[in-house]
């Protein structure tokens, strides 16, 4: 009887606690969600109305002259499909190549002994402190002098200058100190006894990396993928300096198309809604892998 009362009381307490948690969560959700709501709602309004609504709650409500005209306008102004394709190419290449290159480096740093390991690690970590803006200009000088192969007149020729290409948007961003650091940290938590056993069985180091370390590190790969996806998708300063051909431009540069003497705010909002969507989808996909693989492997991060 007494036990029942206690249990019922606990249930009430727990329910009350849950209600509180939901209240807090909903409050926070509103706090974090309003830009997206504003962005999307505004994408349906004419420019004048967006600006007139700014000061009040109407900014978040689809009231007044609502239409999809801004979306049509975006397509008149910007080759959206082409820009999206370019960003997908660049981003997939950076993330994909980055996962391979950085995880190998992280593996070597955390699990192998070789001369210079300490120096390399220090240098890798030191690279973290360099904001891209501070080296952008020397970087342009530099990549414009790099040799490259060009195909023309049916043969391979040798030329200088990386401007105006996919490679100039991709290759400089593959290796990433953060990613290496994260992988190294993660790999170091996998018990070393596994390596030993595999070595005794005659496995090479690369096999150990590929067959043992990689499959055990889903969460690290998911984290790094998200971590490198965002800046790659949002690249702006660099492509606007080095890409001259419109057919090679990524989506963020396209945003500038709307800031003329008269900014087309409605189209800005429509365009950002369109280019944010793929990122959300990718995040949704990865966060699943991220959470479930962490739970499944039970490995400490």
């Amino acid at each position, binding site marked *: 009887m007494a036990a029942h009362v206690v249990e019922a009381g606990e249930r009430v307490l727990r329910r009350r606690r849950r209600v509180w*948690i939901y209240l807090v969560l909903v409050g926070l*959700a509103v706090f*974090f969600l309003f*830009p997206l709501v*504003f*962005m999307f709602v505004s994408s349906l309004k004419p420019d004048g109305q967006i600006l007139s609504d700014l000061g*009040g709650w109407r900014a978040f409500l689809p009231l007044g002259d609502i239409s999809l005209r801004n979306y049509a306008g975006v397509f008149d102004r910007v080759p959206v499909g082409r820009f999206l394709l370019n960003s997908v190419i660049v981003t997939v290449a950076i993330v994909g190549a980055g996962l391979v290159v*950085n995880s*190998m*480096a992280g593996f*070597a*740093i*955390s*699990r192998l*002994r*070789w*001369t*210079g390991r*300490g120096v390399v690690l*220090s*240098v*890798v*970590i030191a*690279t*973290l*402190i360099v*904001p891209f*803006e*501070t*080296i952008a*200009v*020397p970087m342009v*000088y530099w*990549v414009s002098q790099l040799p490259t192969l060009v195909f023309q007149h049916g043969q391979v020729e040798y030329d200088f200058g990386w401007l105006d290409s996919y490679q100039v948007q991709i290759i*400089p*961003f*593959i*290796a990433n*100190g953060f990613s290496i650091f994260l992988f190294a*940290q993660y*790999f170091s*938590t996998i018990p070393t*006894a596994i*390596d*030993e056993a595999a*070595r005794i069985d005659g496995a*090479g*180091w690369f096999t150990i*990396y590929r067959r043992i370390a990689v499959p055990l590190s889903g969460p690290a790969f998911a984290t790094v993928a998200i971590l490198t996806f965002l800046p790659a998708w*949002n690249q702006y300063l660099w492509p606007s300096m080095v890409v001259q051909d419109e057919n090679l431009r990524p989506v963020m540069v396209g*945003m500038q198309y709307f800031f003329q003497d008269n900014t087309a705010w409605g189209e800005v909002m429509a365009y*950002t809604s369109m280019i*944010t969507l793929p*990122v*959300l989808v990718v995040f949704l996909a990865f*966060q699943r892998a*991220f959470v479930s693989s962490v*739970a499944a492997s039970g*490995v400490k*991060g």
Partner: protein
Amino acid sequence: MTAISPPDTRAVGAAASSFPRRRIRADLRSERRAGWAMVAPAVLLLAAFLIVPVLLGFVLSFTNARLVSPEPVGFAGLDNFVRAFTADPTFVRSLLNTFCFAAVVVPVQAGFGLVLAILVNQKIRGAVAFRVIFFIPVVTSIVVVSILWKFMYQRDGLVNSFIDSITFGAWRGTAWLDNPSTALAAIIVLSVWQAVGFHMLIWLSGLQTIPEELYEAARIDGAGAWRQFRDVTWPCLRPTRVFVLITITIAALGLFVQVDVMTQGGPVDATSTLVYHAVRMGYHQQQIGYGSALSLVFFVLVLVVALVQRFLTRDKD
């Protein structure tokens, strides 16, 4: 924070000592070779696209080089550095602003991120949906987000209408970004709001690795929610903590886009940061030599911060 020390010393040390001593030489050599081979692509790429430009910048910072100029480039010794510290009050102000910004953002963002992570780590319905919602500002372009907040911070903007309605008009807000005493704080709020979802995610990955049994054991010992957090969650999050601190510190010290879009360093230098000032001088004003010198000062300062952090966290270990 182990920003500099290898995160894996112990693991590698353990690996080394657990190998049989009679291990043959060839094996060691193959390990060394494999190590170099596996690290080589990353090292070459970092060398080519980070270290070389940094070194170019290093060389430039001792010259009077300009972006656009027919004048020959000349060696300027320490002139640029002397100018920064003696004849450029905006630089000194930027230095203070940058550290002030980091000093607030690092603890606030890390703490808020952890709170969010714990909230969305509850076993309740809809946790994933909230996770996604909290992450939305991170995936929205920072340029767009800055433009939007700039509107909201106006005198007759949304922030003030909100304050007005919850205080029933008792307190009138200012034009947040135009007031030298509130502008940096306004940028801090926006920055935390924008980036905290990312660190929530990192914390979450750490939380998910803590075995449930530890909590059960703690509960059996009669530990309440706070003691469970203090004795189980916090110690288990140590590796995550390191990563969160590093990423926030570095991002905070490199503050640029928000300032560029919202205030251009104003009002009266209240929001000018080191990176913003370096870009303004080196790029907009074409004084690439001077801009590079400012960047170099920035690198050195961040390194010092990292070393200090390392020293402080070492003592605690």
